[in-house]
């Protein structure tokens, strides 16, 4: 700000020719909706980082076997409850590259636990791109190639081993396959149910609306977990892990749709009075076409944001069910199944690393929350 000799105030900032244009005429408002959403989302740091993290996590799922040194149910009988091992680079001020020290188990017969002594004189370098136990890459390509494995005579338990001597790190990366996809399948089921019922109720109104509304109210007023428990208790115990996994995700989805249906319904109630809907109807479009082509695209983005926010609930739900022994069962590996081992105080006190699977759960749930918040904030690019 400067003051001219005659006492007038003048702004020093350069003249912006666009300043008087209304929002609609500005050049960047020509961009497609998705581009605008992306531009706004990009500025939401936390959401962006979470989104990238989740993307990487989901893309890594097919390679779980490659990244883990062991297979999930491989037992090392001599290394039960092994504490986490450090991977070192320097041995006595000399650079060797990633290596581990071999350990030796000794039974402590007084306290009934295993003690491990580390032999710090003998660095043993890790092998890279080595052959180990056989697994299926992408779920169907049998291979023995691992990114890194333990040298002979030593182990590489980055996050420790559990009560059967299985590597927790490998189990976490295998567990991600089930724990992360459970939410996706659940949300698909809930989406299909919620959108169908919500749109039918909102579009047709009347007795359909009344029925759907009562169903929503009843389901929403019931506590979820006891119902989940009851439904999963009904899953026959002789089913294979894959079918149990699918049925559990479907159960999680079945109880989640009411919230979504409610949002869709209220939106439809107002949108069905719009002129373009009337026009479509007069041109003879069937209700299903009006709903799918004219109404739903209007707020698909909002639905996606709310879906992102309800995936974490499903991930936590799976964890809780498996933890209680009513979800996924033993040969299957998920984070909840792993936490089943950390069920008592003794393991928290003596073997705290058995509770490590809670970290990925917390991180993933947080990431979904941040991503959902970011999406929700940026979905309306015309709002400043």
């Amino acid at each position, binding site marked *: 700000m400067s003051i001219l000799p005659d006492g007038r105030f003048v702004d020093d900032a350069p003249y912006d020719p666009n300043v008087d244009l209304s929002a609609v005429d500005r050049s960047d408002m020509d961009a497609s909706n998705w581009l605008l959403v992306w531009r706004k989302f990009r500025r939401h740091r936390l959401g962006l980082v979470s989104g990238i993290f989740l993307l990487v996590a989901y893309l890594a799922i097919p390679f779980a076997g490659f990244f883990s040194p062991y297979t999930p149910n491989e037992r090392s009988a001599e290394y039960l409850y092994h504490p986490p091992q450090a991977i070192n680079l320097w041995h006595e001020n000399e650079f060797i590259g990633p290596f581990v020290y071999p350990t030796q188990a000794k039974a402590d017969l007084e306290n009934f636990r295993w003690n491990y002594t580390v032999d710090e004189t003998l660095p043993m370098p890790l092998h890279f791109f080595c052959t180990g136990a056989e697994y299926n890459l992408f779920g169907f390509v049998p291979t023995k190639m691992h990114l890194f494995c333990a040298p002979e005579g030593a182990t590489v338990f980055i996050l420790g081993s559990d009560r059967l001597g299985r590597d927790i790190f490998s189990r976490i990366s295998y567990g991600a396959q089930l724990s992360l996809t459970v939410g996706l399948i659940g949300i698909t089921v809930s989406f299909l149910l919620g959108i169908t019922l919500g749109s039918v109720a909102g579009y047709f109104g009347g007795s359909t609306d009344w029925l759907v509304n*009562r169903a929503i*109210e*009843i389901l*929403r*007023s*019931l*506590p*979820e*977990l*006891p*119902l989940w*428990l*009851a*439904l999963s*208790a*009904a899953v*026959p115990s002789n089913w294979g892990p894959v079918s149990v996994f699918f049925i559990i995700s479907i159960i999680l989805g079945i109880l989640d749709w009411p919230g979504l249906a409610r949002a869709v319904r209220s939106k439809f109630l107002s949108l069905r009075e719009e002129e373009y809907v009337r026009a479509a109807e007069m041109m003879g479009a069937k209700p299903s076409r009006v709903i799918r082509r004219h109404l739903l695209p209007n707020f698909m983005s909002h639905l996606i944001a709310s879906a992102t926010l309800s995936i*974490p609930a499903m991930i*936590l739900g799976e*964890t*809780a069910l498996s*933890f*209680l*022994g*009513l979800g996924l069962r033993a040969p299957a590996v998920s984070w909840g199944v792993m*936490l089943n081992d*950390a*069920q008592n*105080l003794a393991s*928290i*006190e003596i073997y705290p690393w058995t*509770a490590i699977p*809670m970290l990925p*759960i*917390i991180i993933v*749930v*947080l990431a979904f*929350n*941040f991503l959902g918040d970011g999406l929700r904030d940026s979905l309306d690019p015309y709002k400043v």
Partner: protein
Amino acid sequence: MMFLRYAGYRFLTMLLTLAVVSVLIFIIINLPPGDYLSNQIAELQATGQAEGVAKAEFLRREYALDRPLWEQYLIWVGALPGPQGFSGLLQGDFGWSFEFDAPVADIVGDALWLTVLVNLAAVLFVYMVALPLGVLAAARSATWVDYSTAFIGYLGLATPNFLLALILFYYGHKHLGLPIGGLMSPEFEGEPMSFDKVKSILVHLIIPTFVIGTSGAAGMMQRLRANMLDELSKPYVETATAKGLSPTRLLTKYPLRMAFNPFVADIGNLLPAMVSGSVLVSVVLGLQTIGPALLTALKSQDQFLAAFVLMFVALLTLIGTMISDLLLVLLDPRIRYGAREG
């Protein structure tokens, strides 16, 4: 007068909902093939124990498990007379627990009151924590107060309840000397109420309340903060500031009242989540609520026990929701009586 009519209407809808819920629960309980007794009979026959079979067959007839499903349902509810004096829920006969070999009423007994107590404590905790923190976060938005409450809130939402329970239990015991397990010291179990017993229960309640309440408090804090921020950006707040009203008085006098409505209405969302949480946490911490009973009953297909516990849990939530609806009408006269259609 209008309020009484509305309360009556609300009560009726609750009863109707409960009836529908009972059908739902009955169907879910009967989803697995067979029942506890037929499984037991098959097992006994396989091992060749004839005398047990006779008893199981007798129980099956006694509780009408050999009838078609719809008849079983009506008998269980109490709409149809059952064989040999099984009168059903409506007359206060909750059935027989086959797993524990005792009447359901004896098994749940005290657990019912303790369940109500735990959930009530958790709801109180949520309000006591969420109200000041939410208001503070909104009043000091975009400062470290705001960010740290948001961080704690997110963490509360993301940590699985049962793990939080275990960890807090461990550290609470180690550093604060809080008791481990259960809702009272063992010597008070089955004793009549006394001052010491109440004290013991209160001490035991601390950690469960905290665990069950955390995620609820986190969600409520976020909503309250959003509501408050909406209110604070309105012109009347600016006017009041310009007139020189002190910040505390300004905050509590108007915006807080406005932001309070959704707070009460939220009980409907909060309560189902809390009851869910309390079931899970009770199982982990071994509280004497109905959570552990539900789990064993579901695992062994002990159908009367499981169905009763589910019904009770549903009733608890429905009553809570009804109370919140009624409170809301009392609190805000602008809210219309009657159905929400429109």
